[in-house]
């Protein structure tokens, strides 16, 4: 009879030694709640600061789960749970400054954003009012020009490194110099651009294009590096397939290698742009600061968002009579919010493009 009735799953598992006591699924949650409760109680009773309470709660959580697991499940599971707790805690720690920063900027900046703020410049504004139009346009123009300078140079350098210069002395020197360029402090790039334009146009020159040159110095190494990585990822099988069809090398690069790597290359370029768009020092040095709109990259000072934030915060204007902050502070936060929004939009665009241009497999992923 026992041969005809199938064993109950539980008895079967126990009979072959597969079953072991396990913590319930809500164990970590329970420990977390307890840790917060205990540390909260201690904070209130002993008068700790909020930071101290949070640290104690985290420590209790990291210790509590593995200890419970050790008592119930054994050493291997305890080590596993310890590592899991550690990973989650560090993840939470990483999130704290990010969320905090965005929260601060949105909270302080959002109230300033209005149609006027986005479409007015700061000409003849002493008290409240005014806007970031001149800085917004300046940032967009200078960054666009920087991208126009550095994308071709960076991309062609990457193509040389991957497709032509493999292992040659020139390629090694180029790679080394690109690595050195990555480490250039941005203020040095600004001073270089200033010196260059002073040499050409005489002293006291401040033009937006100088800012573009400085930014492109910072952008080129990033573009070279990311494009190089992407081009290297293209399998050499594809190049050989193309050569075997009697397609010359340059066409193989243009029509096979570049399209295959396009998504990654564009993502890299956009990330490079969003990295330099927030640079302050080089723009302050060479593009200067102004209160008026200037659409001409090649003549006169140009305002940019980072420099606008800096100058609004360093000279916020006169505080209103009867107390309150000077109007410059709010404008600085508003400009910071706009800058973050631009970078975020650029990142979203990069992701979308990367997804759009990724080689299609025709299979669902």
């Amino acid at each position: 009879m026992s041969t005809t009735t199938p064993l109950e799953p539980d008895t079967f598992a126990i009979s072959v030694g597969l079953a072991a006591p396990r913590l319930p699924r809500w164990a970590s949650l329970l420990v977390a709640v307890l840790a917060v409760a205990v540390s909260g109680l201690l904070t209130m009773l002993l008068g700790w600061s909020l930071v101290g309470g949070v640290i104690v709660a985290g420590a209790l959580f990291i210790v509590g789960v593995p200890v419970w697991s050790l008592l119930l499940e054994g050493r291997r599971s305890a080590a596993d749970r310890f590592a899991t707790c550690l990973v989650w805690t560090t993840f939470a720690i990483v999130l704290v400054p990010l969320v905090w920063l965005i929260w601060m900027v949105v909270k302080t900046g959002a109230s300033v954003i209005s149609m006027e703020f986005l479409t007015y410049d700061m000409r003849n504004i002493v008290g409240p009012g005014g806007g970031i139009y001149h800085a917004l346009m300046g940032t967009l123009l200078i960054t666009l020009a920087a991208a126009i300078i550095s994308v071709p140079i960076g991309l062609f350098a990457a193509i040389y490194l991957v497709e032509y210069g493999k292992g040659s002395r020139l390629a090694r020197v180029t790679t080394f110099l690109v690595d050195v360029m990555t480490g250039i402090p941005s203020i040095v790039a600004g001073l270089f651009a200033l010196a260059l334009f002073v040499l050409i146009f005489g002293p006291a020159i401040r033009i937006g294009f100088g800012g573009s040159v400085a930014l492109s110095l910072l952008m080129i190494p990033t573009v070279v590096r990311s494009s190089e990585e992407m081009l290297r990822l293209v399998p050499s099988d594809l190049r050989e397939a193309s050569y075997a069809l009697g397609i010359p090398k340059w066409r193989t690069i243009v029509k096979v290698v570049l399209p295959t790597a396009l998504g990654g290359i564009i993502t890299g370029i956009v990330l490079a742009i969003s990295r330099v768009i927030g640079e302050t020092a080089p723009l302050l040095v060479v593009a200067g600061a102004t209160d008026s709109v200037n659409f001409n990259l090649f003549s006169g000072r140009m305002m940019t968002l980072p420099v606008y934030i800096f100058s609004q915060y360093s000279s916020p204007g006169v505080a209103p009579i009867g107390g309150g902050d000077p109007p410059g502070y709010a404008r600085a936060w508003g400009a910071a919010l706009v800058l973050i929004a631009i970078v975020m939009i650029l990142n979203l665009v990069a992701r979308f493009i990367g997804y759009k241009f990724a080689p299609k497999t025709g299979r669902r992923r």
Partner: protein
Amino acid sequence: MAKSIDVSDLNIYYGDFLAVAGVNMTIRAKAVTAFIGPSGCGKSTFLRTLNRMHEVIPGARVEGKVMVSGQSLYDPAIDPVAVRRQIGMVFQRPNPFPTMSIYENVLAGMRLNSKKMSKSDADAIVEKSLRGANLWTEVKDRLSKPGMGLSGGQQQRLCIARAIAVEPEVLLMDEPCSALDPISTSAIEDLIHELKSEYTIVIVTHNMQQAARVSDDTGFFNLKATGEPGHLVEFNPTTKMFTNPDEESTEAYISGRFG
């Protein structure tokens, strides 16, 4: 028009390393020639010298002569790109272009060389090539779908269609079936039989039965010893190779008593 290939005293180098030494053979037009031999003996290397794909690898070079219908392939006046247009190649692993549809993959040889052609000509070439590669019935309703979406065997046949779309004189195949299941393999072997009437075909294979099934001539490559260059041991009609080879070592390899 298919072409024959005469190889005389060919030494193949990777930098200073002599990989294959002293190859002499005549590959007949409109016939299938198979190369067999253990791994690392230089079959694929030799195959790649026949359309100057060898020199794609930095430092690779050859000495000796490869004559294709009276022209020396390694003459300084010869353009390697022109050579590869006449001598096509199919690789071990299927490698359709991932950014292109099935249709574009077949036309890649023309499109990427910016050859102008009308839509109807292009359609005709695609259909002819895909029929030639025994793939037409399977993909005719989804020509605009990505080539990477096909199965491995279909991808390999797509690569063959791509290679024959440019109408080469010679088709080199480097272990075209090694990554495929028996059914796809059989489809490709049937295809080789059909292509034989129009193309000169050279195939490298590790599968002795395959060499016996598809080829008219067979060349056996071997290493004298580890570290020595590979060389051509014997080159004879396939029936003779598999029944009564001249060399002791050929028989040993074919019958599985090797090494």
